[in-house]
């Protein structure tokens, strides 16, 4: 079996194992969106704590709503949270330059009717973009972490 195929094959096994253990939440497509029952500030706090608890660093929070309001547009709260693992970001941008436009990882957070929505691209969606064997594992790990992070956001009260 070629080295190129191995991670895909292992992922197939891992996916089967995960199904066996009931670990995979059913998700529809390549985006994931969760609704938090918390208000916006509390959701931001929960999300950032969950991201850090999973070993990631938040490099920046982009306040989209602030920019829009300054320019005279009426908008609700809207932030983009950038995160990643420093050494991993450093290695990936060095070894896989074509991945650079997709780094760091990010999640959008926006308010709606007293609740808050968090949305992200599933990292495994990047499989279709980048045909590097090592990245299959990386994206799968990011995906598991993201699901876990979003589960914390969904369940927070």
């Amino acid at each position, binding site marked *: 079996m070629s080295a190129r195929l191995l991670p*895909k094959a292992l992922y197939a096994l891992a996916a089967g194992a995960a199904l066996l253990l009931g670990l995979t939440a059913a998700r529809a497509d390549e985006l994931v969106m969760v609704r938090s029952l918390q208000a916006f500030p509390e959701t931001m706090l929960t999300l950032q704590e969950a991201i850090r608890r999973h070993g990631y660093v938040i490099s920046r929070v982009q306040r989209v709503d602030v920019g829009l309001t300054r320019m005279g547009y009426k908008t609700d709260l809207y932030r983009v949270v950038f995160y990643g693992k420093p050494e991993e*970001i450093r290695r990936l941008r060095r070894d896989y330059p074509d991945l650079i436009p997709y780094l760091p990882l990010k999640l959008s957070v926006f308010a709606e*009717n007293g609740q808050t929505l968090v949305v992200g691209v599933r990292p495994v969606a990047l499989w279709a973009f980048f045909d590097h064997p090592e990245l299959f594992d990386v994206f799968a790990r990011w995906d598991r972490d993201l699901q876990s992070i979003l589960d914390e956001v969904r369940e927070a009260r």
Partner: protein
Amino acid sequence: MLTGVNAAMGRREYKQGMIFRALSSLSLAAFLVAGALVPAHAAPDGALLYARNCAACHGADGRGGVGVPLALPDFLATAPDEYLRKTIRLGRPGRVMPAFPHLSDAEVDAIVRHIRSFAPGVRPRRLPEGPVHGDPKRGAKLYARHCAACHGPDGEGGKGTGVTFSRPRDLPIIAPALNNPGFLAAASDAQIKATLMWGRKGTPMPSFLKQGLSERDIDDIVAFVRSFERRPHERRAALKDEPPVLVRESASDYAATVENVKQAVAGQNFRLIRVQPLEQGFFPEGEASRAETIVYFCNFNFLYKALAVDPRVGLFLPCRVTVVERGGKVLVMSINPKRLAALFNNEELDELCERMRGVYEAILEDSTL
């Protein structure tokens, strides 16, 4: 017929494909075995499945949000289980509602039961089977007069996704796209007719019997709506052939290229937001590599419109171009919004992403020449 290198690659990929399929089958077999070991009474948990797959858009209590409100008694009274099942299975291609092909029949049924629990006293009306016979030409005129203002002249539905940025908060729903193949496959003629006749309390959809239309008029509108099935709809497949990254090699040195990008951004009527190393925020100041510089920029008018189309576009934000130095070459790179659009299932967003791709291409061209 495959020849030479292509043939060799074809054989190799076929072999790899077979191995992958074999391993996947093993996983599937293991999954099925495990399924057999699960006690028969372990029925799917509809509330849990709904929470994971539906609540983000339709609300934990089914009162809607990004998605339509499901808890409306009038909706549940005219929506047969089969409509709900097919809607879950097929989604609404090109709209925000995704398809859920991976759910089992039992899981779909569990979700449908959970949706029904939002209005426990409401049972779906028994609707006649078979097509409604009407005159689609006459229906077209009636549709233009009575329906097009909300559902669009070609049944394309109301603008936006129905979330914060897309509509005033007092409106509970964005008018559905009646020309959507998912809707047309899920909704029976009788269901469309029932909705037209009785309207839907809690939404702007009125009863057209009360508006003065006859049953024959309504049959003609149903026939016209059904005629959308014969119109071509699919235009999204080509998005997946787009490259994920746009790249140009610069003729200038690294520092000059960064400056060129800034000027090119301004030339496209975008406002410069900030310029920073890729690693900024991950390492202490001075330790972040300067081999990649991100130029962030925004056009707030464009952004505002894009958020109204789909609030999830934050995943594209802020707009950015990265200047990268590798092996003596200076590259200017960006995401390809058109490729990312394929993830969103929103045709309105496709058009904006096409425009953004043009902007990125122009910035890359202008800054590297």
